[in-house]
């Protein structure tokens, strides 16, 4: 029996060590004022998620390459209950800037802002509601939310997909509509398709499906569900699939690419990050996260950062391999729509949160 307990103990210890491996502590001393440290806490998921966490981490790495940050480090969140703990790890280590990625970390980031008044917080995709409330008691002095006009990004690819579709049926497979940015992507996509319809006199049907039937921890990390949902839409005639929502969306994009339909990515230029789908990647609805994070990190260093909401920009990715399939008229039209969205002459008509 003794031998048995030993084997069991070894197995459990081994599995715990393997589970714990990942983020290693930084060597340099971030508590010193001359060392400028930027830490990043991911949402549940990995820093290599080929989407959201990855773009933000690239922004942090860019700030290091630009000479803004001396030390950069990330912590991957394994469970939603660890948000505060992971932020505190950086706070206690004396980091100067802490980047937290994703809407879900909003509350934890806001609370950490009060707990670590000397640290500047950059909350990617975190709407700072306090800025709009009458009550000044809950104002934050050091949390800046980096937001994006997701509806614009969705609008761009929606218009593109509607112009490219032959069946005039489009699909979108998204995370959960409980997260306002994800909902704005979906609604923007519909609005963009409707705009293109108005221009060309077509009637396009848009299927938008959210993975809202599971918890927050799973809604963005279920590629198999995404693939099945995309397949179901293609069975019903959709010939362009927009995957918006982390790994779930990636599954949908890959399935669309395998079936030879148009695949549309989200957040980053997924042509570069999703090789399996690259040949059929039409474009991506881009939140320009990387420059936004780098810009805010630089502003934090020179002290010009302003707490509250900071609006980054949206865009659409190049057509890459499918460049030949997109006609010159459509390209020109896309340029016009993008310019119109930037100068405000085209409005998506999407409200900030789901009514």
């Amino acid at each position, binding site marked *: 029996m003794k031998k048995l307990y030993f084997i069991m103990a070894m197995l459990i210890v081994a*599995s715990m060590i393997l589970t714990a491996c990942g983020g290693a502590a930084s060597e340099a001393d971030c508590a010193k004022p001359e060392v400028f440290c930027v830490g990043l806490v991911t949402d549940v998921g990995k820093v290599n998620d080929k989407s959201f966490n990855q773009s933000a981490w690239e922004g942090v790495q860019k700030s290091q390459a630009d000479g803004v940050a001396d030390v950069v480090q990330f912590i991957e969140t394994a469970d939603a209950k660890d948000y505060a703990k992971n932020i505190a790890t950086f706070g206690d280590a004396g980091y100067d800037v802490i980047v937290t990625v994703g809407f879900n970390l909003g509350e934890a980031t806001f609370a950490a802002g009060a707990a670590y008044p000397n640290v500047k917080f950059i909350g990617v995709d975190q709407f700072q509601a306090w800025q709009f409330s009458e009550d000044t008691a809950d104002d934050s002095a050091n949390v800046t939310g980096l937001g994006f006009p997701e509806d614009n990004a969705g609008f761009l690819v929606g218009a593109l997909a509607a112009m490219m579709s032959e069946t005039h049926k489009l699909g979108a497979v998204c995370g959960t509509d409980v997260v306002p940015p994800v909902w704005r992507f979906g609604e923007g996509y519909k609005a963009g398709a409707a705009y293109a319809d108005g221009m060309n006199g077509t009637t396009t049907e848009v299927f938008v499906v959210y993975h809202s039937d599971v918890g927050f921890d*799973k809604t963005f990390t279920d590629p198999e569900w*995404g693939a099945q949902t995309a397949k179901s839409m293609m069975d*019903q005639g959709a010939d362009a699939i927009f995957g918006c929502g982390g790994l779930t969306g990636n599954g949908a994009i890959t399935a669309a690419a395998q079936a030879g339909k148009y695949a549309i990515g989200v957040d980053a230029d997924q042509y570069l990050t999703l090789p399996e789908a690259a040949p059929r990647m039409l474009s991506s609805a881009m939140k320009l996260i990387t420059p936004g994070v780098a810009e805010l990190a630089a502003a934090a260093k020179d002290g010009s950062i302003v707490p509250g909401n900071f609006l980054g920009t949206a865009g659409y990715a190049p057509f890459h391999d499918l460049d030949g399939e997109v006609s010159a008229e459509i390209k020109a039209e896309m340029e016009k729509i993008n310019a119109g969205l930037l100068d405000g002459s085209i409005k998506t008509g999407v409200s900030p949160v789901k009514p």
Partner: protein
Amino acid sequence: MNSRRFGFIAIIIIVLFSVVVSIGKVKQPPLLIVTSMLATTIAVATPLTLGALSGVFSERAGVVNIGIEGMMLTSAFFGWLGAIYMYHVFGFNNGISIVLGLIFAIITGGLMALLHAVLSITFKVDQIIGGTVINILAIGLTGFLNRQLFFGKNSFFGGSVPSSPGVLPTLHIPITEIFAPICSSEACLQGINAINRVFDQKPVAISAILLVFISHYILFNTRWGLRTRAVGEHPKAADTVGINVIKMRYANVIIGGMFAGLAGAYFTIESVPSFEPLLTNGRGFISLAAMIFGNWTPIGAWAAALVFGASQAMLINMQIFRDVIPPQWAFLQESYIVGLTPYILTMFILTGIIGKTTPPAADGVPYEK
């Protein structure tokens, strides 16, 4: 598994489908909706069916296996890794790499099951704890190796995931070609085309259906099956008549592991050609529910897995037809309500309303001579 419960399952599936058809028929032809939903149902049910078969073999032989989730995850990882290694390092072509990946996945499932067998049969560890160890080990092992091999600074693949050799192709079963000449009417031809669309599935999905019937035959019509059930019901009696209880249990747990391995291959070799940490997302546990729902029989477990698949197909389609849902049905837009269906059903079944659920008598009890 009695006919009453089969009838109950059939009614549930028909109800789920009819709701969608009655709402969606203004947008799409009913036949298209039904075939699309059936195709989704079968595909979604594939890993659940295989996982449940894994549980059936293991538990029929008297070993509780809650490590199916971990076995699936590990096999999904090693199958995918094997395919990539074969493709990039050994330079095999796509097809051979994918098939080798599939074999790797099945072997991995078998090895994980061997670990479970050693723990629970030889060392007589509490089988729930043994299964939990497998699940934790799988998460740690795959997450760790995924990071070390692909994303570390000096990692083997240099910091990025190389393109995978792809996924298994769709098998075209020539139903139309065979039966079309017999057809005389247009309606018959349409029907055959529709059936063909439903069964345009990939190899693992098709083999899962075949394996259900093969497993049923093996368990209930062969000497091996009789012995398996004997060591799960009354191992002492089986031992008395000369059956090697330990050997039978080892063999069945490992066979079960190989089923879980095939389920793992479904994720990374058949569905999506990439591995993501935790990608099985609890489907191993849902397949355990399907196994119990199906009263530890292969066909029953399959039927239960189809209920889970059908409710997911309904979920997807309710959202596709969201804007034509009549106001009195508006609650169906809330996807979590529909998503609850299979879990509520499982609870109903366990309360014994629809027939009795009986596990093998010696399930979870280590055999001591």
